[in-house]
């Protein structure tokens, strides 16, 4: 129960549906399933094994673990990514956590009664301050700020006083309740039909199609204006209508049928799918390596890793994926999703589902409260890598380490809640840290495990204490397939999204918005400052790492303590 409870977080119910919608559903799910089997699961196992090995020598942080495994000076600096990722993600994750408790309170107090999609989208934008920077900084229950202050203080109070075991016990009751509630909500979503009779194509059945159909049908404008985004159509009747529209357009429109294979040629889709797998399984996150370091030598890392992963996937695919995206299509329409995808999708859509349920305010409040509980355990777990790093590198006690980290994350979270216009700071950090750096760290870890530490030594450590050994097929998977797959996607992604090379036509294409936000005429100050913030944290952690005596012992393969 504890394993399942700790696995559930905001990534399952909010981030996953948002990404699936952003990348068009079906093909994303194929990339996601492949990523789970060939990279998520094996790299997770590798991380558990390396963490437990480092812990047996007294090292609990990612730089310490990397240094003792590689035994070279550079390794500890690569390990800093394993501190940066959870600390920076915490800075925006706690903001989303505050939205959950804010929504829960407003549901229970009867102040959240949203009847249509315009209400729901508008309320969310006002609550989080998406209209303009600093617009969420008001002490009102309909704004994020008071909830953020409460949640931030609550998290640090729990870890400063060492009370996090209490919240863990609450979650042992809360998480089965969350799953039960999710099943009730799922039943309601599946029976929604078409909520607006004037838009019969916007129904749950087409929502399921949008989420799971591997192929796509799009209406593309040929002229004018060239380059306008294609409009997706889902469902036999909608496609038939689109065919008539195209026939009547005298060539201004054309119908394009995309096979799953053509969509799978997009490296951004793979990067997002792999990134989501890593995010929700906490692989490449710097979290597992730290918690595994506290395990005993005879603990079972194989079944621990598999159970945590399967619980996560159950909540994400069987619950999160079946609730939010079909409901989003039913309420917002296929065209509406395109502009609303992202982590906020659940906040815009689920209140509308609750408005169609008996005792919707109770269910809405309960769902967002349980989600908040799940998020608290996740956010506290994100702080431990930073705490362990500061304890180890500065040789200070836990409370001093918590205080330093508290100062750093207060600044970072303040930054995220200030730059809320279009949620640019949050979105930038979520992409460059929550996807890109996670991807990079996972790649480094699998190369360390398979090539530097050695596959034989790694598997010996992995299988020690296990109820069943990891199947031998995972040896070549970890040694060859994982790094090849990750490096291949990475190279293609750089070609397409950074260098702007169109892989399908071989000509010059569009550069990613995440890149143009940082460089060139369309650059955005909040996005640039977000990256500067991450860079400043890296430099600070790098300086601490360079001076650490513990890491110097790790480089020599010595235990932390004599």
């Amino acid at each position, binding site marked *: 129960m504890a394993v399942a409870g700790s696995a559930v977080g905001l990534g399952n119910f909010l981030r996953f549906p948002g990404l699936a919608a952003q990348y068009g559903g079906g093909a994303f799910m194929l990339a996601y399933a492949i990523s789970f089997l060939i990279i998520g699961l094996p790299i997770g196992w590798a991380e558990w094994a390396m963490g437990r090995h480092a812990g047996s020598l007294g090292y609990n942080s990612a730089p310490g673990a990397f240094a003792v495994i590689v035994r070279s000076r550079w390794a500890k600096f690569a390990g800093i990514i394993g501190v940066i990722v959870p600390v920076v993600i915490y800075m925006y994750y706690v903001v989303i956590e505050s939205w959950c408790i804010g929504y829960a309170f407003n549901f229970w107090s009867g102040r959240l009664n949203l009847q249509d999609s315009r209400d729901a989208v508008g309320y969310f934008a006002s609550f989080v301050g998406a209209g303009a920077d600093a617009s969420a900084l008001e002490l009102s229950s309909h704004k994020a700020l008071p909830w953020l202050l409460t949640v931030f203080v609550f998290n640090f109070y729990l870890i400063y006083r060492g009370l996090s075991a209490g919240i863990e016990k609450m979650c042992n009751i809360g998480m089965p309740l969350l799953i039960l509630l999710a099943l009730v909500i799922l039943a309601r979503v599946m029976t929604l039909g078409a909520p607006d009779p004037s838009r019969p194509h916007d129904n749950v059945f087409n929502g399921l199609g949008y989420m799971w159909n591997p192929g796509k049908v799009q209406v593309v404008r040929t002229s004018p204006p060239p380059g306008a985004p294609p409009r997706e159509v889902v469902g036999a009747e909608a496609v038939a209508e689109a065919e008539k529209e195209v026939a009547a357009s005298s060539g201004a429109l054309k119908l394009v049928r995309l096979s799953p294979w053509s969509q799978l040629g997009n490296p951004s889709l793979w990067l997002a799918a792999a990134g989501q797998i890593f995010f929700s399984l906490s692989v490449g996150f710097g979290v597992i390596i730290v918690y595994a370091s*506290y395990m005993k030598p005879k603990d079972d890392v194989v079944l621990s890793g598999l159970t945590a992963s399967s619980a996560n996937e*159950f909540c994400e695919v069987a619950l999160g994926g079946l609730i939010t995206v079909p409901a989003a299509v039913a309420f917002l329409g296929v065209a509406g999703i395109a502009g609303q995808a992202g982590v906020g999708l659940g906040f815009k859509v689920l209140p509308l589902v609750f408005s169609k349920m008996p005792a919707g305010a109770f269910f809405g409040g309960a769902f967002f409260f349980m989600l908040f509980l799940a998020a608290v355990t996740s956010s506290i777990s994100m702080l431990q890598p930073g705490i362990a790093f500061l304890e180890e590198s500065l040789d200070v006690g836990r409370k001093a380490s918590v205080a330093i980290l508290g100062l750093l994350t207060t600044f970072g979270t303040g930054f995220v809640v200030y730059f809320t216009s279009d949620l640019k700071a949050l979105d930038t950090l979520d992409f460059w840290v929550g996807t890109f750096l996670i991807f990079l760290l996972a790649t480094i870890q699998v190369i360390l495990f398979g090539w530097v530490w050695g596959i034989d030594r790694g598997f010996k450590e992995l299988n020690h204490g296990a109820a069943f050994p990891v199947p031998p097929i995972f040896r070549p998977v970890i040694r060859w397939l994982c790094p090849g797959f990750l490096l291949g996607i990475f190279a293609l992604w750089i070609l397409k999204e950074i260098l702007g090379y169109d892989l399908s036509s071989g000509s010059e294409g569009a550069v990613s918005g995440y890149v143009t936000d940082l460089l060139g005429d369309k650059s955005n100050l909040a996005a640039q400052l977000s990256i500067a913030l991450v860079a400043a944290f890296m430099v600070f952690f790098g300086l601490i790492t360079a001076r650490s005596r513990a890491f110097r012992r790790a480089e020599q393969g010595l235990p932390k303590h004599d």
Partner: protein
Amino acid sequence: MTLSGLLVMLLSVGTVCILFAWCVFKVLTTPQETEKVHAVELHTPDMNEPD
């Protein structure tokens, strides 16, 4: 929803349900396994050390 979409959905949801159920079964039926399987447990040993 197309037939291939339905198949992808049933396969994906079915697989994760079966995998999760098998893991729970394995943990509960292997002797002493409940003590050897751990999650990300929030109470870490450094919380017990004096500052």
